[in-house]
């Protein structure tokens, strides 16, 4: 198994570092499917006779496991290298999809929770942190851009996962459109050509189910496995001591917020900087979820628009969520990590404060611009954090440190929506009209962003007493 070891992935002289980001994107765009799990809510609910909330537990378990596995296996990921980690991530994530498919066949909701949630969630955590330290080591001069590219892939995964599952379920349920006399769309023809040969055997395997969800899960497992294995195959780590031509770590660290020292993962979480950054991420995520989680409802309630327009609004936000990851984290290479988070928090809070005005004046365009910017910064917050960690703790175990910090996301994903929905529900119960009930939520978001801003402003370089001696430095 030496092919999988870290040593086997060391790049030969002359290797182009620009071949590494596609490996990271290949893995991230697959595991980003988790954001699109809701597309299976109704089909699985119909197959199993369970409620949508019960089915959705699989998604929540997956997000919790993402954080827990990233935190637990971070050191193993650093030791094993990206190729082995990506392979294990592929086995867990795609295996989880297959177990979920088996759960549909056997009508066992518990198996879906275990497969997609627990096993698949471990795959998410490993896949999420696997390329981070590799990218940071390849791009010490532009860590924000490099990790932003990978994490943009995660945002893109949602954009792919949802329509992919829908097209596959349509394909396997044998053309209701054709029965209604409607010609297939370009995408339907494309999928029929690519997946068509699998249709009969998979439909035979799925006898007794009728939504196409089982076949879609199996097909997605196969497609995602191809991309994740492709990523694992092409990924490389730089040779010890390698640095880009013309890059001088000491010069890059001149303004003090970028270290050339190293801090181990076991020490990092004992520093105030770790917990300040944990708070920064947690607040940024919680505030973004405020819009993302209820986007369609919010648009419909505040402006009285149709369901199609509400869904269109969600689609637009997804694009900004993805694009913001690359744009904002690349910007952080130019203006610094602390400055870019100050922008997220100050501009984010200002934009949230404007939203009630947009409802009052029924200015839909301004509302869309403000929320799109907010969501771009939500994505940017995810993408910029690995580079911030690299600045604070060095490249030595940055992947593992990132893994532990990801628990902030798990926490925000569980607590954020509860807090926001609870607050909104209480306003509605108090007799506030639905269109205005969001206003309080927006001010709550401003408060969360304010907490994040204070945490960010308190971040200082890590004390030298925490630095590890005699380790590879940036």
């Amino acid at each position, binding site marked *: 198994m030496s092919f999988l070891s870290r040593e086997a992935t060391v790049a030969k002289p002359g290797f182009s570092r620009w071949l590494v980001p596609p490996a990271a*994107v290949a893995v991230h765009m697959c595991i980003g499917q988790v954001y699109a799990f809701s597309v299976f809510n109704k089909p699985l609910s119909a197959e199993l006779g369970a409620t949508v909330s019960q089915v959705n537990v699989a998604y929540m378990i997956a997000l919790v496991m993402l954080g827990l596995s990233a935190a637990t296996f971070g050191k193993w990921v650093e030791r094993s290298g990206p190729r082995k980690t990506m392979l294990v991530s592929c086995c867990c994530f795609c295996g989880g999809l297959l177990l979920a498919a088996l759960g549909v066949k056997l009508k066992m909701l518990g198996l879906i929770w275990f497969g997609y949630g627990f096993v698949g969630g471990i795959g998410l955590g490993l896949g999420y942190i696997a390329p981070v330290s590799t990218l940071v080591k390849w791009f010490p001069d532009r860590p924000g851009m490099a990790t932003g590219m990978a994490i943009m892939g995660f945002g893109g995964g949602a954009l792919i996962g949802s329509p992919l599952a829908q097209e596959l379920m349509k394909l396997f349920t044998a053309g209701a459109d054709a029965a209604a006399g409607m010609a297939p769309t370009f995408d339907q023809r494309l999928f029929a050509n690519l997946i068509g040969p699998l249709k009969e055997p998979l439909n035979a395997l799925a006898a007794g189910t009728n939504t196409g969800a089982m076949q879609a899960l199996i097909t997605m497992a196969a497609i995602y496995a191809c991309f994740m294995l492709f990523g694992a195959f092409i990924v490389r780590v730089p040779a010890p001591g390698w640095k880009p031509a013309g890059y001088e770590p000491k010069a890059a660290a001149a303004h003090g917020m970028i270290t050339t020292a190293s801090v181990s993962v076991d020490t990092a979480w004992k520093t105030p900087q770790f917990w300040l950054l944990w708070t920064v991420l947690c607040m940024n995520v919680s505030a973004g979820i405020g819009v993302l989680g209820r986007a369609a409802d919010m648009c419909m309630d505040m402006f009285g628009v149709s369901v199609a327009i509400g869904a269109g609004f969600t689609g637009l936000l997804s694009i900004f969520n993805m694009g913001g990851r690359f744009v904002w984290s690349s910007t952080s290479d130019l203006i610094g990590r602390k400055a870019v988070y100050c922008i997220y928090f100050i501009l984010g809070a200002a934009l949230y404060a404007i939203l009630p005005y947009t409802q009052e004046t029924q200015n839909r365009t301004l509302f869309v611009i403000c929320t799109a910017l907010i969501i771009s910064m939500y994505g940017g917050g995810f993408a910029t954090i690995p580079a911030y960690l690299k600045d604070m703790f060095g490249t030595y175990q940055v992947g593992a440190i990132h893994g532990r910090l990801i628990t902030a996301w798990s926490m925000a994903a569980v607590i954020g929506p509860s807090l926001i929905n609870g607050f909104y529900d209480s306003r509605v119960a108090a007799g506030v009209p639905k269109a205005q009930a969001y206003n309080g939520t927006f001010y709550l978001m401003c408060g969360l962003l304010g907490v994040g801003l204070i945490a960010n402003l308190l971040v200082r370089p890590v004390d030298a007493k925490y630095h590890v001696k005699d380790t590879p430095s940036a």
Partner: protein
Amino acid sequence: MKAVLIWIIVSTPLLWGVTQSVKKSLPLFGVEAVVKK
């Protein structure tokens, strides 16, 4: 050449996903959604 091919392989699905989201967001701008041909 190899690098270009690798970039095409990973960016094609992403572009497809973006296209799907753009189609989905068209009603927001007053344009009819997916036109079936």
